[in-house]
């Protein structure tokens, strides 16, 4: 019998269901919205099945360590690279630039909050 892949978990043993939920962070909502735009047949950049294949290809360790939308964006990134929609180098450069901008924005916000608290 073929060995199950790690995502194929129906019927296996597992612990009690932790009945939890959370409000999604802005970046999680963005991942969700982007997938829907990319998978829209009028753009045809990628499909939901490719998303799933990309998630399954993350491998057992990563699959269980990452949160749900972390798996999604990792898969989306890999598939866009695979298809040549983006290049590794430009993604790296963009991430450096974006991170600097995000840190600056967060600093600005916390400074503004501290300023208000001190007033």
């Amino acid at each position: 019998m073929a060995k199950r892949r790690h995502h194929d978990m129906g019927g296996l043993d597992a612990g009690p269901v932790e009945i939890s939920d959370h409000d999604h962070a802005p970046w999680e909502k963005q991942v969700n919205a982007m997938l829907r735009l990319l998978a829209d047949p009028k753009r045809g950049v990628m499909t939901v099945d490719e998303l799933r294949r990309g998630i399954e290809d993350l491998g057992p360790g990563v699959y269980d360590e990452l949160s749900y939308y972390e798996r999604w964006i990792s898969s989306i990134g890999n598939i866009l690279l695979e298809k040549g929609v983006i290049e590794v180098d430009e993604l790296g450069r963009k991430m450096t630039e974006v991170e600097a901008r995000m840190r600056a924005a967060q600093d600005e916000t916390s400074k503004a909050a501290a300023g208000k608290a001190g007033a």
Partner: protein
Amino acid sequence: MSEHDDHTHDHKHDHGHDHDNGHAPHPFQPDIEDGPITEYMVLTRAIGELMVEKGVFAAEDLREKLEYMQSRKPALGARLIARAWTDPAFAARLERDAMAAAQELDIDVGVVEIRALPDRPGLHNVIVCTLCSCYPVMLLGNSPDWYKSREYRSRVVREPRAVLAEFGTEIPAETELRIHDSTAELRYFVIPERPAGTEGWSEERLADIVTRDCMIGTALPKPGAA
């Protein structure tokens, strides 16, 4: 895609941008993240900006899609069920073709098939996606975290009664349980039975007791909940 989110995206983005610097149109600026900035947040925003720069989608498309996804909530599914409970002809149409029935109520259900699973005396339905996380987002909004968890996906197909009991839902031993495994091409939602004690209620009042979990099948509607 969360479900209980009252966030309205009405904050201002007036932190003094300079549009005269000769750069391409301003990148989409999502909300500032509250917590520590992670690699995945950075990756998300970087991919978003690259897509806009390459013209794969426009910043406006992203903004519109975010708003649209915010509008998908369990209240949409609850409206269908409340109508079915008060209109047997509609109930028959909903069971036959849920997509067309939703359109009758001006509910946009997209193009991926969604099928209704009516409970009957002695039969209760539950949905899951054992392989990933397929879910009728168009009708119920985003799925809860537990729906995507290893525990729920693994166990609900083998010991549904025990799993439902963890939700505080006891299904009598003589009731048949059918667990439906969703796919990317076919998603389901449960039409629970109308509970006793709701005779004469308006559709709006009925819709209030149909929670998200009632349409997943892990809860049953209770007249006291409204």
